[in-house]
């Protein structure tokens, strides 16, 4: 019994060392808060520990962790605003804490989460649009439309900043 738990702990530690940054980033992009992002990542890995089924590969584990982190953040946001429960797309954005000082990042995080998360997954993690659509449980065409809008908005924001400077 203890050996199985040790093995399980080792497995969890290995997975944590591999994918903790990714999970943390997803949580931070969605929640825009360091403490809440930490809590969400912890809950995600606790769920991974309690998950009974085996995974086919590391990519499978990564995808599962991203989806679980997204759902955890969604639950966190709905829990945060207990007074009214709305759909994920309609959830209001939490103001960004200026801890990670980067102008581009600030602009990215100022976007709605339905734009920022696909941007992160596509441009940083390298997922294709149909994979992201499957992960986020969205229609492929709507996801592509959202990404186009996100690019245009980001461009506008950065141009405005350059113009102001």
């Amino acid at each position, binding site marked *: 019994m203890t050996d199985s*738990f040790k093995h399980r*702990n080792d497995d*969890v*530690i290995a997975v*944590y060392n591999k994918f*903790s*940054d990714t999970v*943390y*980033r997803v949580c*931070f*992009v969605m929640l825009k808060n360091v403490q809440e992002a*930490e809590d969400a*990542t*912890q809950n995600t*890995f*606790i769920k991974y*520990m*309690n998950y009974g089924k085996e995974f086919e590969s590391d990519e499978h584990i990564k995808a599962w962790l991203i989806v679980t982190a997204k759902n955890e953040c969604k639950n966190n946001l709905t829990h945060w605003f207990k007074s009214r429960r709305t759909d994920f797309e309609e959830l209001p954005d939490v103001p960004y804490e200026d801890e*990670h*000082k*980067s*102008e*581009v*990042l600030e602009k*990215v995080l100022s976007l709605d989460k339905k734009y920022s998360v696909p*941007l*992160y997954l596509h*441009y*940083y993690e390298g997922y294709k649009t149909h994979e992201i659509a499957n992960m986020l449980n969205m229609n492929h065409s709507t996801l592509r439309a959202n990404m186009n809008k996100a690019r245009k908005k*980001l*461009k506008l924001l*950065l141009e405005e900043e350059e113009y102001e400077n």
Partner: protein
Amino acid sequence: MKIDDLKNSFDAISPTPEQKDKMLTEILNAEDKVKGFNFTRLFTTAIGLAAVIAISVVAFNYGDFNVTEYENMVAYKTEEPAQKKTIKEENAIKKSAKTEKKENVQVAAPVTEDKTETIVAEAPVPMSMARTIENPENVEAEDANENSGIAVASEENEHNLGIAVVSEENTTDNVEWMTVPALEEVEDLEEENVRTEEDKETEEELEEETEENEEETKAVTE
């Protein structure tokens, strides 16, 4: 804006090594907490169940004793001993009177049944016909004399049953048919009367034999 700038911006979002260690320790502690919670939950539920069972058993056993004790205490406080005795005696007398009444009623009840039975038995009217008469009021025993032994059916029954009067002596000859009689019933009557006569004869013989035996025994003893 280049894509590299965007990637670098996302690179900035990464937990520090301290944050990572902190999160990992909390994750591993959370697993222990989950295990401990399960164990404590089982332990507490087991203890709770045992306590509930014990309390229920004690209450069940101790509850009756408390009730009687409480009743006695209340009676002792509210009533004086002399009055208590008188009340108890009165209650006992009332109960005994009630039981006596009930017994009398129970004894008296079979008498009525016997009367109806005797009426039927005394009358030489065929049993099958007599049983059809449900109301004993319709049956008028002409006299209480055992010798006559005549039972008269009411007028309604005369018409319905076709039997008017039946005497004990020579029942077959004395039957007077007021209306058209049923032949099968008459034959049954005759058979039953013959059987009763035979039974009487055997009884008389037995009585005579017993008397003779008694006389012989007396003579032997003398």
